[in-house]
């Protein structure tokens, strides 16, 4: 297998080269280690851009496919099957984009066991890319579970005071969902005789039509898959691990956790639940919408009452991902496209929020909102960037968040109308209530921004001074870390067309398939 004819494989496993190099580097050469990891991730990012150039956005199907028989003995039919299509290309790019940024953010934040950190982080990238690229359920499952391991260490070793609790909770919760998925994967594999996702979709639809798999079974499979993904997303009410994990994780971990790992859940719905179980999807859509809507409102309300800024951002993820779920299960082009874009947006905005919070935490060692205040005056650049990111997160038009939220809500409203996926239950109420989330987002985001950056100077400023150094504004490295995200925040906000174009054919294809399934149901 020539790696250069296999860009996806090359991209996914390239970080392993970095891991190998890291393994042989002395652990006290911290900067060498950092640079190695950074360069590795940058090259991976480069490869992903190369992949992008080869990606034909007009093609709705999987592209750059690498497909080899892997385990085909003993009645197994497992393939090494990687491919990228409009549904995943953006997430792949998001992953390769956020990884170097996260590594950059650890430059001074991580001083302990740098080598281990970089190894785990680089390994994590392999897992994440694999999740988004794998087109074989078994392969997917391997990557899916694998991502847990490095993340577990990242939280558990470099996290906050309750890190072990958080790490174990993170691990067990995610695993609790994925084991149900494992059973469903096996069941589906046995029934359809293949684990390949595209083949499965074809085989299963035949089995639904012929009644080999009855609707109830289909629904159970849907639920089993959904269990894994919903915990990861996390959908309300399965979000309880998230605040712990986010609060305790080191900055880079939070960034990746929010930026990419949560997307694995929503992506899972998109890649597996919707295409493989279309009838169950249609039946479940209003219920998902209900949960998503509750999540949006609940997450936003709970965010507002947080006293810990990381927790606030964590709960805001519950709200934001509620939007993503709502959009995807609108099952129309607007909703799904918006959902995908919102995944990217959330990755950028929330990732950036965590980065920024991490930057200030590094100086103050506290995340209590109430001790801050008036920071904008002391750290104008930091404040301004925070403002942009916060606005992006609350969906200000012209910034990326709006494009996603708007299309999602638009799609959701359409889904609530006659013939739409939410019409059987709730109808336009889901979109209407979810739109309240827009107001509530403003409330908690502005609350956070005000309490930290506006108003009179907070006690932390003097507190820090007591330790002999004043609060400083962002340095060049930190600005360099955050600016790429800012560029995308504006780009997607102002000119999202290239992003939508990447996914449009694939989304249309999915919508068409769903419509066909809906027709077949009636």
């Amino acid at each position, binding site marked *: 297998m020539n790696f250069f004819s296999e860009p996806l494989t090359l991209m996914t496993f390239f970080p392993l080269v970095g891991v190998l190099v890291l393994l042989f580097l002395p652990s006290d050469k911290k900067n060498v280690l950092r640079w190695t990891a950074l360069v590795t991730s940058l090259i991976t990012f480069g490869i992903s851009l190369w992949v992008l150039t080869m990606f034909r956005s007009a093609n709705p199907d999987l592209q750059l496919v690498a497909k080899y028989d892997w385990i085909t*003995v003993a009645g*197994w039919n497992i393939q090494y099957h990687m491919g990228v299509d409009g549904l995943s290309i953006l997430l792949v790019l998001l992953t390769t984009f956020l990884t170097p940024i996260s590594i950059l953010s650890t430059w001074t934040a991580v001083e302990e066991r740098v080598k281990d950190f970089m190894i785990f982080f680089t390994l994590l990238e392999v897992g994440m890319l694999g999740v988004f690229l794998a087109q074989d359920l078994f392969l997917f499952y391997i990557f899916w579970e694998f991502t*847990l391991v490095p993340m577990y260490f990242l939280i558990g070793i470099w996290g906050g005071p309750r890190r072990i609790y958080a790490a174990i909770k993170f691990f067990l919760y995610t695993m609790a969902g994925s084991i149900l998925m494992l059973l469903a994967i096996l069941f589906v594999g046995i029934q359809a005789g293949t684990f390949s996702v595209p083949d499965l979709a074809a085989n299963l639809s035949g089995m639904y039509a012929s009644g080999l798999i009855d609707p109830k079974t289909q629904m159970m499979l849907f639920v089993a898959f959904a269990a894994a993904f919903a915990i990861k997303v996390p959908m309300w009410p399965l979000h309880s691990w998230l605040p712990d994990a986010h609060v305790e994780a080191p900055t880079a971990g939070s960034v990746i956790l929010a930026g990419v790992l949560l997307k694995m859940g929503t992506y899972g719905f998109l890649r597996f639940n919707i295409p493989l179980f279309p009838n169950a999807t249609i039946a479940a859509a209003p219920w998902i919408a209900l949960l998503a809507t509750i999540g949006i409102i609940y997450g936003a309300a709970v965010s507002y009452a947080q006293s810990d800024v990381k927790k606030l951002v964590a709960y805001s993820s519950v709200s934001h991902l509620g939007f993503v779920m709502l959009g995807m299960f609108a099952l129309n082009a607007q909703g799904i496209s918006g959902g995908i874009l919102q995944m990217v947006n959330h990755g950028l905005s929330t990732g950036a929020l965590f980065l920024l919070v991490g930057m200030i935490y590094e100086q103050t060692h506290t995340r209590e909102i109430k001790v801050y205040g008036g920071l904008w005056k002391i750290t104008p650049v930091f404040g301004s960037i925070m403002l942009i990111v916060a606005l992006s997160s609350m969906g200000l038009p012209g910034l990326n968040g709006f494009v996603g939220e708007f299309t999602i809500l638009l799609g959701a409203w359409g889904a609530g109308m006659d013939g739409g996926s939410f019409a059987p239950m709730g109808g336009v109420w889901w979109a209407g209530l979810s739109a309240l989330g827009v107001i509530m987002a403003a409330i908690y985001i502005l609350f956070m921004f005000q309490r930290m950056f506006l108003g009179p100077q907070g006690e932390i400023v003097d507190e820090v001074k007591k330790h002999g150094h004043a609060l400083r504004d962002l340095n060049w490295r930190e600005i360099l870390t955050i600016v790429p995200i800012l560029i995308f925040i504006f780009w997607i906000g102002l000119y999202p067309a290239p992003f939508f174009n990447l996914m449009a054919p694939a989304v249309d294809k999915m919508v068409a398939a769903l419509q066909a399934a809906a027709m077949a149901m009636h």
Partner: protein
Amino acid sequence: MPQSSDFQTILPLTILTVWACVLLLVDLFIPKTQKWITATLAAAGLAVTLGVTLAQLGGPASTGFSGMVVQDGFSTFLNALQLVCGLLGVALAFGYVKRMGLERGEYYTLLLFSVIGMMLMVQAADLIMVFLALEMLSIPLYVLAAFNRTQSASEESGLKYFLLGAFSTGFVVYGIALVFGATGTTNLAGILASAPTSGLLLTIGAALILVGFGFKVAAVPFHMWTPDVYQGAPTSVTGFMAAGAKIAGFAALLRVFSTAFPALAVDMTDILWALSALTMIGGNLLAISQSDIKRMLAYSSIAHAGYILMAFVPYGNPDVAPVSIAAGLFYLVAYAVTNFGAWGVVIAMEKSEGRGLAISDYAGLAKKHPVLAAAMTVFMLSLIGFPPTLGLVGKFYLFRAVLSGGFVWLAVIGVVTSLISAYYYLRVVVTMYMHEGEPTVEREFWLDFTWGLSALATVVLSFIPQALFVMASSALLK
């Protein structure tokens, strides 16, 4: 009179037996300080036998000694596995016994005899052979468990193992008697061919035999000896026992049940189902509260017996059994590989007089010995069933088989208990990586080799499991 073809069927066994007997004599001339020679010779014997066994791979099946033994793909596969276990058992012991002051040549000969018993168990085609093989494998293990005579724990372990082992043997013998009574023969094929006078008598006989095997593989409720014996026995013995005895027990169980009792599947499936479920639940739940790594791994081995048992549940269903049993065999291999690694790490951490065995002693291991900690992490992940390890592939295979057999709830119990297990396995990882401590580690080549190889195999084989799959599936009983 036996023909040469008869000996052909037990060729590896013969070689190893002769070697063991010779070694027994040779050892007398090896000075006390040079016992590594005995170890090397034992390993050489195992290696040679392994070579011979592998040469038999793919050969035709044959029976020998008036149907007493059989040599087929199944036996070759498992014999090879047992021999590898034996080799790893020697490797584990190599430095350990010296460090613990147990270095005596008989250790290795007894180990060889135990391997002989295991191989015999795999090849047995008559209940008499099964019984003898069971004893052949057990008696050396009783002695080995009590090998550390300076430690009362070791003696206690030996006695408990012995008394309970003999007790369970009583059931096996009684079971064989009932089977004989029902069918008039002890030959496995003969039992199948016979028209039993009473199905119920046969069933009960089979059930009593199952008790014996259940004891050997440590299935709940026949498991209670396991933690005590595993904890008390010298760790190198425990490591060997945990894999070898389990493999042998399962092999015999499989051989006996699918050759002789497929007709009893209706009743046995329920019992196996219950045993499997109980074993998974019990093993995992009890493991949670352990603070001693040896006990924890002991319960873990109980739990894994439960998983493997899952594969045997549909043994009588010709549609499902082949896949299912192949999955069980595969899982056995995965378990054995991981198991040796884990015990290897335990040995590396163990100090004399039983110190260094608490899980809390592993604190800080990742900082001081990152490679060892990484290897242990791999083993723990494999035991949970997490990628990228053989454990995941094994579980995947296993659950697939169980599901295709239609045992959805059993599979659910399986996955839920694996979730529970994640907690206690992770605790080891947490301790190694996230707590501060100053652990010291014993480094010796063969020990490093064992856990290193196991770790490597656990990871690498998870990516290229085909060969193992092929072997496991070809090892099916026709």
